[in-house]
């Protein structure tokens, strides 16, 4: 079979629909992951022993198991264990939230702890309650240090959506696989899929670089 690049254009609408699904899962997953990660990260850095331990266990369990296993567990084990049956798309978003949340928690914790203890003390010494010190002083400073590692996690999570192929979510990789199964155009289709991923991660990188530049990193 000869390589024929022009066939890519025939399948472009289909691939774009897949890419849209990838973006959809990534965006909702990461928004949720950031919320969960911020909470778990602050539980680690500021929580008492109980909250700290809960967050620690969550992070270790998620970081210590492959994301494919987590997806399988959510999709196939939860219905048995808890009678909870969720559709593939919701499972996919949930998996990204839970998985990215654990890594983002560590990023948040690291960023918060990297802010000198002296600044917290200076805030407390003025008579501010601890939460105000976090909101007005430590938080904004930590946020700037968060951006580079957070960008990294965004890219990882975007690519992780490709493994939802295992539960049949019609994201980009799955779409490529389906087209392939019909016409065996491996070179053209997988090249196209790879390029589309690169465009998405490239755009993410670019956006992050702009945000980073706009903020004075202290």
């Amino acid at each position, binding site marked *: 079979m000869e390589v024929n690049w022009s066939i890519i254009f025939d399948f472009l609408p289909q691939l774009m629909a897949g890419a849209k699904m990838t973006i959809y899962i990534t965006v909702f997953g990461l928004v949720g992951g950031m919320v969960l990660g911020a909470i778990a990260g602050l539980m680690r850095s500021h929580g008492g022993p109980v909250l700290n331990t809960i967050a620690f266990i969550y992070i270790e369990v998620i970081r210590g198991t492959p994301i494919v296993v987590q997806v399988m567990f959510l999709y196939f084990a939860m219905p048995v264990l808890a009678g909870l049956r969720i559709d593939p798309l919701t499972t996919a978003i949930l998996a990204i939230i839970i998985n990215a949340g654990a890594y983002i928690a560590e990023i948040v914790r690291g960023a918060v702890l990297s802010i000198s203890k002296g600044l917290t003390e*200076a805030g407390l010494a003025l*008579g501010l309650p601890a939460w105000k010190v976090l909101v007005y002083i430590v938080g904004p400073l930590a946020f700037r240090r968060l951006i580079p590692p957070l960008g990294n996690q965004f890219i990882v999570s975007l690519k992780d959506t490709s493994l939802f192929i295992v539960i049949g979510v019609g994201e980009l990789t799955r779409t490529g696989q389906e087209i392939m199964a019909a016409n065996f155009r491996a070179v053209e289709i997988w090249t196209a899929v790879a390029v589309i991923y690169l465009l998405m991660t490239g755009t993410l990188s670019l956006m992050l670089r702009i945000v980073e530049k706009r903020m004075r990193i202290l």
Partner: protein
Amino acid sequence: MEGIIQFRNVSKHFDALKVLDEVDLTISRGEVVVLIGPSGSGKSTLLRCINGLEAITGGDLVVDGISVLEGKARLRTIRQEAGMVFQQFNLFPQFTALENVAFGPRKVRGASRSEARDQAMALLEKVGLAERANHYPSELSGGQQQRVAIARALAIKPKVMLFDEPTSALDPELKQEVLNVMRQLAEEGMTMVVVTHEMSFARQVGTRLIFMEHGKITVDGNPREVIANPPNERLKDFLRHVE
């Protein structure tokens, strides 16, 4: 007269380590107390207990009628009565000098933006840095940063000022500008507790000198007299090393 700061049998342990050993100390309004001692003697800890940055583990400590044991909300009131200046300045790097000074009144006292700003400007003027108001800490020398930090602490209108080795991180030529501001404060009648190794400051500005060893106060007296005739060998030895 009742003291504004009263240590009553105060102890402080870090796990098994005893840093303050049943300290009794009363400081009255208007006193300029200079705390000296070898490293690890507990002088910084003593200072940091006053505004609750270190929690005491025994006894009681009363500041302006409030015990540090009365709970978080009351502790914040103490902190508003006792401004603190740190060895490492600890200015908020994301704020300008003016914003650093206006921050406390805005967020603690609930002052309006313009009120906090005017007051901050007046305080920067007082420490001689009005023309640096819009500079960020990273654009200021160490001495200038420390003067901004003093203005920041004064902005919440404290009754006592606590200084934790305020000049130790500064080059010799920058120390003087900070010491001058402190001297001016003392002359205005501010109650001050100063941990320092600047013996000339102790002699000229201090009204009381306290020497600490192993978590205990072993010498407490008039700075000029105590420095001229150290009543204990350890202090004599210590003075030889710092001067």
